[in-house]
């Protein structure tokens, strides 16, 4: 009992040290733990795989609504989904409701495009690519980063009525009007109705909920990649059918990477994540035992 009471007064820096070690040691000496995809992640994967809902060449809008503070959680999901889209010959149009989102989108696009092109021959041999896939994908033709725009709900409302008006230029200042990715067969102006799927990688406000609030206007299927903190909040939108799927935090990214058979930073992070959770659980149990021991001691003293 005395040990537990002593533990109650443990300097919190020991907790920090143990948590740090529980992350560092599995990173230095990695071992694989199984990753089992959840229904929410599987549903998103199935939706992107579905050639009837998303035929080859369909343009999808990916909104990068996070900043570097949430990058370790959301970028692995974004990269995995982008790689999957390239393999399916879908054309991602990346934008952002968060100021640094455009830069986050750029980093994810570069990593995903390189990952796709470097594994093209291997994937083609395995028959994992859509028939129209190309060995080299081009900016403005197969994908584009249109960058950040201010306004959140008002901006999304503007996108619903005329997609090209808020985006006359991409993130690098190139004119979007001449880009093949925005061309329609009958020279009709590109609109939100041409988008097959909206995905928002959301770290807080101004993300997927902005697109959900405008669902009555754009009427497009939606999915989310969210930080772990937001999982309980966004699960309600999954249950109500407003989202077709969701990847939650780093585990969500690991699940998606498993489904597309491309282990990345998500899968690599699952072992330290599990070990760190075990350490925190032990500290919570010891903390509660110490509390009970203290209560009993006080009761004995009184009794």
């Amino acid at each position, binding site marked *: 009992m005395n040990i537990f009471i002593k533990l109650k007064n443990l300097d919190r820096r020991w907790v920090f040290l143990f948590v740090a070690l529980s992350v560092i040691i599995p*990173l230095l000496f990695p071992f694989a733990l199984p990753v089992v995809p959840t229904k929410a992640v599987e549903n998103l994967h199935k939706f992107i795989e579905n050639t009837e809902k998303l035929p080859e060449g369909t343009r999808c809008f990916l909104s990068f609504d996070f900043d570097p503070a949430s990058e370790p959680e959301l970028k692995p999901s974004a990269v995995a989904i982008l790689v999957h889209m390239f393999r399916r010959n879908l054309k991602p149009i990346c934008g952002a409701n968060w100021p640094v989102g455009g830069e986050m989108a750029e980093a994810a696009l570069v990593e995903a495009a390189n990952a796709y092109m470097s594994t093209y021959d291997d994937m083609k041999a395995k028959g994992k690519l859509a028939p129209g896939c190309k060995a080299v994908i081009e900016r403005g033709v197969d994908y584009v980063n249109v960058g950040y*725009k201010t306004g959140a*709900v008002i901006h999304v409302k503007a996108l619903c009525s005329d997609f090209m008006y808020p985006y006359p*230029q991409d*993130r690098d200042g190139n*004119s979007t009007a001449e880009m093949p990715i925005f061309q329609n067969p009958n020279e009709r102006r590109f609109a939100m109705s041409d988008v097959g799927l909206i995905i928002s990688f959301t770290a807080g406000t101004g993300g997927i909920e902005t697109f959900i609030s405008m669902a009555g206007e754009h009427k497009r299927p939606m999915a989310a990649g969210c930080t*772990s903190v937001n999982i309980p909040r966004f699960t309600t939108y999954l249950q*109500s059918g407003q989202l077709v799927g969701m990847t939650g*935090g780093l585990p969500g990214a690991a699940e998606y990477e498993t489904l597309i058979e491309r282990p990345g930073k998500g899968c690599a992070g699952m072992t330290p994540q599990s070990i760190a959770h075990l350490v925190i659980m032990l500290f919570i149990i010891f903390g509660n035992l110490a509390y009970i021991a203290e209560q009993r001691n006080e009761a004995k003293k009184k009794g």
Partner: protein
Amino acid sequence: MTTLLITTWVGALITLCCFTFLIKDNPFYRFAEHLFVGVSAGYYLSTISFHQVLKPNLLAKIWPTYFASGIAAEASPEYILIIPGLLGLLMLFRFSSNLSWVSRFTVAFVMGVSTGIAVVTSAEQYLIPQIKKAIVPLIVSGDYFGSFSNLILVVGTVSCLFYFFFSTEHRGPVFGNVAKVGIWYLMISFGAAFGATVMGRISLLIGRFNFLLSDWLHLIK
């Protein structure tokens, strides 16, 4: 290559400065904090606000010949956009203690538009779909788990809503117990939120250690 080396070292040292806060507050941590605020503000104003918003969406539409590129440069000027441009400039009056009231015109305009849109969309896209999905049958024939799940959902929704109903005192066998059930549901949801928060923070820590051990020290591939 040299740029990458320098940025990696700067990133690693700033990360270590932030970690020193775990021992106690110190000048290294405060240096990193102030540097972050300064760099963020400068980067947001110059690179993002101007190049990704002001230039393409305001200046290029008012003076297409000077600021637009491609066929957009041949478009006719949209002088109507001078009005929102001026409204934006009014915000700068906030820096003056005597004339800061002028900025309220812009704030009032933004508030009015945002509230108008939010009222309609909140009811249409948040409230109604959620209420619809909470109206479920308590008995699903042949599906015991489905029935149990629906029962949990209905009891939880009713008891939590009752907990936030303050016109009746939460006492007695009916009102008191229903409110208690509501508290239990709320506690479970707080637990789920806390667990998810811990998971998120550990993921961020993994991201930082990954950077330090991989990009900086090259100890892992």
